[in-house]
């Protein structure tokens, strides 16, 4: 009874006005698309910044036409200055980690599909949901403003290590108002994510349809649920950390600033703070953040692979328990970012073990994906290609983690391109492959139109080969000791590595250009694509039981009833080789 009354409470009439429908909408589907749209703007901006950085690294003195218009001080005559390089790097990292890798796979797809997949009409708290997006949007605007202020964008990297980030403009350009905007933006972002995470958790626990037990939820629903539990704790730590940073910068406190610092020939008026406190707080958020980016991608990829293989995974339960283990262990590993930070060397050993251990659930998942392919009848679509690409990238990025998990090897590889290659592959590109797989898979449901498969496959091949050409050589550079975050390589030992840098830059330019095929496909298909049927991929979960695009209230005011586990494939059902979750028919096993 209690369940029924909860569901009744969320029945509301469709909005009439344009603004209520498309801008300040309470509908989880519109909010999901808004998050996705914001992520799209952020990812193309972030990619353009990486182009500029790569171009500058390969040809440090080349003029970039038009760049002077964006920043006269940062690129006089179109040539990027060292400090502007750091600005590009900081903005690239911040945009990508927060506004792309958190927004698209978790807040974007999660918002759109979590309620539908559990048979709910909306999120538990639609107003909080709207607020979470708009706070995130303001966070984005605040960060973006930093491009246009006289001080220039922040230059302390996406990790904003104190005291560089805390002492203000005495530390250099971009560290005045640029850094203030960064700290304000990230604080707002945390608030948005906290609201979103609360909503995801409440919705999953309270609004499931009749028959939708927890273990009947699709794997991606599980992934969003686990991610929201991580997000609730992680952003709850980053938010106060950013507020303390703002206080250090604006109110004269010294949480992160010790005594006796001399910058710009001035003895700083601070005492008693600890730079390592910032690092602990930041990475206590920062490492779980890696899983906030990758877990939803794992969920999406599992969902897509199962549908494409026409058979369930060897064990969905094992995948779910592995994701839970990863979520749990993610809280015990943050110190592996700090092996050479001056932290007590004994704690390095303690952080090293859970870091190595986390590879066990990750390997179990990989082997389950691999082993499930055996004996399948895999349908090759753009969505399944990107899902396979994800598995490949996740393995490539994962194995380099073995090196960095060991403090002794980290002495040599820390702060080199090896680290950059590792995290770009495992959390950056792998998560992006998950997002792209989800996009090709769910676009028909979201828009009511099919995407062009030929363009989708072309996009896959350019992206797949291209990302290997970009990020595999990063590992080689790191092995040779190439230091990261340098705007040019003036040191003798790095000069011989320049040809490899040029190769990477060319690969990055081509791969980046390939993304415009995707953008074209996305926009063109939205308006001109073939009309999509209700269930184009013959899927079993609830999103495929409603029209494309779904109506207001998702299930047209009806309450779906769930009879089966989420992935009934390889069977003889009335519709073919599958039985949908809400189909009352008996499952015939041979």
């Amino acid at each position, binding site marked *: 009874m209690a369940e029924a009354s909860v569901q009744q409470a969320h029945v509301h009439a469709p909005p009439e006005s344009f603004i209520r429908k498309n801008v300040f909408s309470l509908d989880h589907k519109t909010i999901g698309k808004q998050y996705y749209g914001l992520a799209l703007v952020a990812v193309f901006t972030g990619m353009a910044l990486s182009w500029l950085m790569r171009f500058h690294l390969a040809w440090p003195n080349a003029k970039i036409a038009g760049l002077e218009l964006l920043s006269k001080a940062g690129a006089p005559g179109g040539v990027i200055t060292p400090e502007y*390089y750091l600005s590009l790097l900081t903005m690239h990292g911040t945009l990508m980690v927060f506004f792309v890798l958190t927004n698209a796979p978790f807040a974007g797809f999660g918002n759109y599909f979590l309620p539908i997949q559990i048979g709910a009409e909306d999120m538990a708290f639609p107003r909080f949901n709207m607020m979470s997006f708009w706070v995130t949007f303001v966070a984005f605007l605040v960060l973006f403003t930093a491009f246009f202020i006289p001080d220039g964008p922040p230059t302390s*990297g996406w990790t904003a*290590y104190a*005291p*560089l980030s805390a002492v203000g403009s005495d*530390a*250099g350009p971009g560290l005045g108002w640029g850094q203030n905007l960064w700290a304000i933006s990230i604080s707002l972002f945390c608030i948005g994510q906290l609201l979103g995470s609360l909503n995801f958790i409440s919705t999953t626990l309270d609004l499931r349809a009749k028959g939708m037990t927890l273990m009947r939820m699709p794997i991606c629903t599980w992934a969003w649920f686990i991610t929201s539990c991580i997000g609730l704790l992680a952003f709850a730590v980053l938010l106060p950390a950013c507020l303390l940073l703002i206080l250090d910068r604006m109110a004269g406190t010294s949480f992160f*600033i010790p005594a*006796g610092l*001399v910058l710009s020939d001035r003895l700083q008026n601070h005492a008693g*703070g600890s*730079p*390592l406190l910032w690092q602990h707080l930041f990475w206590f958020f920062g490492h779980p953040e890696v899983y906030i980016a990758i877990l939803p991608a794992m969920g999406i990829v599992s969902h897509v692979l199962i549908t494409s293989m*026409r*058979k369930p995974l*060897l064990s969905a339960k*094992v995948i779910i328990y592995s994701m839970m283990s990863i979520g749990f262990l993610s809280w015990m590993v943050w110190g592996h970012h700090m092996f*050479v930070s001056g932290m007590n*060397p004994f704690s*390095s050993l303690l952080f090293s073990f859970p870091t*190595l251990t986390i590879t*066990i659930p990750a*390997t*179990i998942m990989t*082997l*389950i994906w*691999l*082993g*499930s*392919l055996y*004996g*399948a*009848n*895999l*349908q*090759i679509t753009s969505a399944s*290609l990107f899902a*396979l690409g994800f598995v*490949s990238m996740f*393995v490539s990025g994962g194995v*380099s983690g*073995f*090196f960095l998990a*060991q403090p*002794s*090897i980290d*002495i*040599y590889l*820390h*702060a080199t391109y090896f680290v950059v290659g590792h995290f770009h592959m495992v959390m950056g590109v792998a998560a992006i492959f998950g997002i792209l797989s989800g996009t090709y898979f769910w676009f028909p449901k979201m828009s009511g139109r099919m995407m062009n498969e030929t363009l989708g496959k072309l996009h896959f091949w350019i992206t797949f*080969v291209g990302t290997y050409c970009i990020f595999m050589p990063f590992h*080689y550079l790191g*092995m*040779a000791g190439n230091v990261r*975050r340098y*705007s040019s390589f*003036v*040191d003798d*030992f790095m000069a011989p590595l320049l040809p*490899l840098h040029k190769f990477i830059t060319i690969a990055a330019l081509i791969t980046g250009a390939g993304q415009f095929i995707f953008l074209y496909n996305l926009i063109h298909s939205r308006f001109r694509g073939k009309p999509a049927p209700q269930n184009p991929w013959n899927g079993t979960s609830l999103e495929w039981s409603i029209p494309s695009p779904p109506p207001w209230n998702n299930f047209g005011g009806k309450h779906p009833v769930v009879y089966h586990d989420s992935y009934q494939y390889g069977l003889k059902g009335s519709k073919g080789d599958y039985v949908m979750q809400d189909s009352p028919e008996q499952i015939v096993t041979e």
Partner: protein
Amino acid sequence: MGKLFGVILTIIALVSAYPIVTHKYVQPEDISTHGHAIDEQLSDTMAESGFAFLGSQLLLAFFVWKFSERKAGAKISNIPGGAKLMVVAAFILIGTEVLALGVLGQKAWANVYFTAPKPDAMQVQAQAGQFAFYFRYSGPDGKFGAIHPDKIDEGNQNFFGLDPANDVESRDDIVSGELAIPVNREIQLLMHAKDVGHSFYVRELRIQQDFVPGLDLSVHFTATKTGKYEIVCTQLCGLGHYNMKAYLNVLSQEDFEKWTKQKISEQ
């Protein structure tokens, strides 16, 4: 297209492994007494990770080749052993790897961090500031003068904020822009940050350690080969970060004594 995926992924995996197998990009020659343990750990990890990388990628390529776009009515089956086999395999393969790398490999870390420097190790103080390193030797009296941040004056070359007028111990301190050390003698580097975080990285020494403002850290090492090596900053420290470097000059005992004498005469 599944077959194409199999072929392309196989090529990618083999091409990716080629520069590693041929040692095209490797760390430079080790010139420290502790570095061989790190190198050994690195090559063991490379062997195990390389195996995991090639094994998984080739298996993925093969399965996609074999099990995609099959004829209608093709029988769907499961791998013998099922999920249990995968879980057991992961525990055995990775569990062994975790134990082997994690437990045995701690020795290399212990070499650097858990052994105290010998009592006769030569102490050198390193100071990192935006965007230069300076090194200080205690001079004939064997004692470092105190640092006074308010007296730091780069214009007058008082990089450490010494107060020779009132502090006798600081009068004979030798300050240098390069880190000159004698070969085969243990050095204890006392690390002090002047402004923001920096890092001390010498590839050949297999040493990387952050300078943390407000926290006086130290590392110790013994260089075994004379020569000049680059010291670079690896902690993002501001606009001049890319250009923050100094040289480690490993000298024979006689040359080091000559260097010291010359420095004293220049003071």
